[in-house]
Each structure stands twice: as C-alpha cells, then as structure tokens.
C-alpha cells in the first residue's frame, strides 16, 4: 500500500529489519525492538491481573525467550504477535505455579477475613482470550502511530483522548493556546494524520 501524501515518516525500520539486525548482534536494533514493544508486553501480565513484580518477571522472561529464539522465528515480521503470545504463556505458567502453591497451602483459616484468603487474591485463571490480545495489539499500534505525529498534533490527541478524566474543550483550548471553536476542525485533522500514521506502524 502506498502511503498517502504527507503521511508521517516511515524512516523507522520495520520489525523484520530489526530482527535481522538483532540476529547479526546489533545491540541498537535490540534496544529499539525492546522499546517498541515494552508497553505492549508489560501490559499483557498487568491486564491478566498480575502484580507489578510478577509482570516484571513475565516481561523479562518474554524478552529473554526472544533472545533465545531470535534465529528460529519463521516470520520475523510477526515478532509482535510472537512476543504477545509468549507473554501470555508466561502469565499462565506463573498463575499455574501460584495455584499449586495455594493448593498445597490448604484452605484459609475459618476465622480469617476474606482478604486473607489466598484463593480470593488469585487473578482470573484463564485471562487474556485471543480477542483481548488482539485488541491490546491494536491499542498499542495506535499509540505507536501517535508517536509519529508532529508534536502539536500529538499534544492535541493526548489532551483530547488520553486524558483521564476527559478534559473540557475550554481546558484543552487553553492549554494549547487555540480557540475553543477550532477544536472540531483540529480534531478531524489530527485524526486524519493519525489514520495515515497507522499505515506506517
């Protein structure tokens, strides 16, 4: 597909190119690959309900597995899906370990409060169905596309759609130094830029 005129830069190497450079021992390529997918891979265990500590474990193990398998990935262009699948598998492995520990520990004290019940603290045993993983990948993709917009457009989109709780138009206009009446047209322009940027990630 040919990017439309004035589409955002496509200067960043694609995944297949990064993997090829990683296979050749290029540390800069590896750093770029990790930074490209750090948010996505870290979100997988967090979305599965794992703690920050367990998420860190899943995160580093997933990338360590990638190092191990760099030379054996059939389709380097699908490294994103490979990482997500690996992270999900590591989540399930960790949850299974937790379950065994809880089973061995036996039931909670009868007089213990609900918060003391280790079973109650376990995340969903079957988290992250395929549809949810796919949605995560699309969300991450739109965020990476956002990074390719010019600073002003990016700031607008962030204030408009990423702020939680949402900001009133008057606040967005004040922060960006634009007229409140121009928010509608600006919104349309920025979304169009973002749509084109999506073609490049």
């Amino acid at each position, binding site marked *: 597909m040919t990017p439309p005129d004035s589409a955002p830069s496509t200067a960043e190497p694609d995944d297949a190119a990064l993997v090829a450079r990683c296979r050749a021992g290029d540390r800069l390529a590896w750093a770029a690959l990790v930074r490209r997918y750090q948010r996505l891979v870290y*979100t997988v265990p967090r979305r599965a309900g794992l703690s920050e500590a367990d998420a*860190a474990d899943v*995160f580093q193990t997933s990338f360590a597995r990638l190092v191990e398998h760099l030379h054996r990935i059939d389709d380097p262009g699908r490294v994103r899906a490979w990482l997500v699948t690996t992270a999900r598998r590591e989540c399930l492995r960790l949850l299974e370990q937790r379950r065994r520990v809880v089973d061995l520990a036996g039931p909670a004290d009868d007089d213990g409060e609900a918060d003391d019940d280790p079973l109650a603290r376990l995340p969903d045993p079957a988290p992250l169905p395929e549809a949810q993983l796919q949605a995560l990948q699309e969300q991450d993709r739109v*965020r990476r596309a956002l990074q390719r917009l010019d600073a002003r457009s990016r700031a607008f989109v962030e204030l408009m759609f990423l702020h939680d709780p949402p900001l009133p138009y008057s606040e967005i206009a004040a922060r960006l130094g634009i007229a409140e009446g121009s928010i509608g047209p600006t919104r349309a322009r920025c*979304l169009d830029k*973002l749509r084109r940027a999506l073609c490049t990630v």
Partner: protein
Amino acid sequence: MSTPQDPTDEELEQLLRASRTLQDAPDWLVERVIALGPGGAPATAALPSLPPTAAAVIAGAGAALRRVLARLVADTGSAPPLALGLRAAGVGTRQLLYAADDFAIDLHVSAAGAAGAGWILSGQSLGAPGLNEVRLSGEDREQRVPLSDDGEFGFGPLPAGRWQLTLVGAGLQIDLPPLDIAAEAAPG
C-alpha cells in the same frame, strides 16, 4: 465498513481511549532487558542486574553461564514482601531474605555509625555450595569480594543510592533485586 488499516474517526477515538490502560514498563526493567540482548558482554563478564521478582532462569542462547534471578521472600522492613527494592528508611538493621534455585541469601543493611557515615551491606549465602564471589555495583563503581568459607560477605560503608548485588560461582550467576538506600535514612 472500515478495515483495521482504515478506521473511522469513531473507531480511532475508541482505540485511543482504550489505550489509556496500556502501561509502560518501568525504565529500570526496560534497561535490563536491553542488557540481555544479542551482542552483549560475554557471559563470563559482570553482567547488568536483572529484574527483582520470582526466581527465573535466563539461559541465553549458547551462554555457558546460567543466570538466576533471586526473589525477595522476607523483609523485616516496612516494604511489602514483593517490593521492587528496599527504601531503607528505618533505623538499626534491616534483614532481607532472597531465594534463588537451591540458594538462600540473607542480606543485612545497617548504619555504619554516626549519621551520614553511610551503610554497611553484609550477608550470607545459605544452602548449596558453589558460589565464590559477590559483586556490588552502583554509583558508578563495582566492588568484588570473595565469599568466606561460611558463605559470608560484606561491603561498606556505602553512600546512599541504588546498589546491585550479584553472586557468582562456577557456571552460575545469581542477581538480586536492586537495593535503593535512601539518603535521608539516618542511622539510629
């Protein structure tokens, strides 16, 4: 109907709003994973620290050195057991216990003396033999000490900062979670 490559404005807005729940990995974690990458230092060199949680083995492709990530299992301080590091805000000695493979590492952090004199880091490797050296890195320096016959080691006085302990043996390296010693923590 739109395609994933050609979403409508409404779909883009929904995607953006949904993406608010994505979480960036902590910087220290990203940096450590980058350090694991291909073309890095030889496996026998002092490698960067690794993440701090449940024990896991990183068997790099072709690496002769097995790297084990220790996990914190007990902490006499106020931090929760799975905290990513130690904020040594208390007085006296704080004891932390880590587990990794067949090893347990007992770590103590204590004030070196008068206020501002720094901190002493001491500990002991318990369990299986095989470790022979401890490396402490942080604050732009690295120190190495041999383990005693009883598996004991010590460093200090150390200034406040982030420190990383690594225990090394034949074909094995155990990385402990990073240890943040706060400057404001006055010895008792």
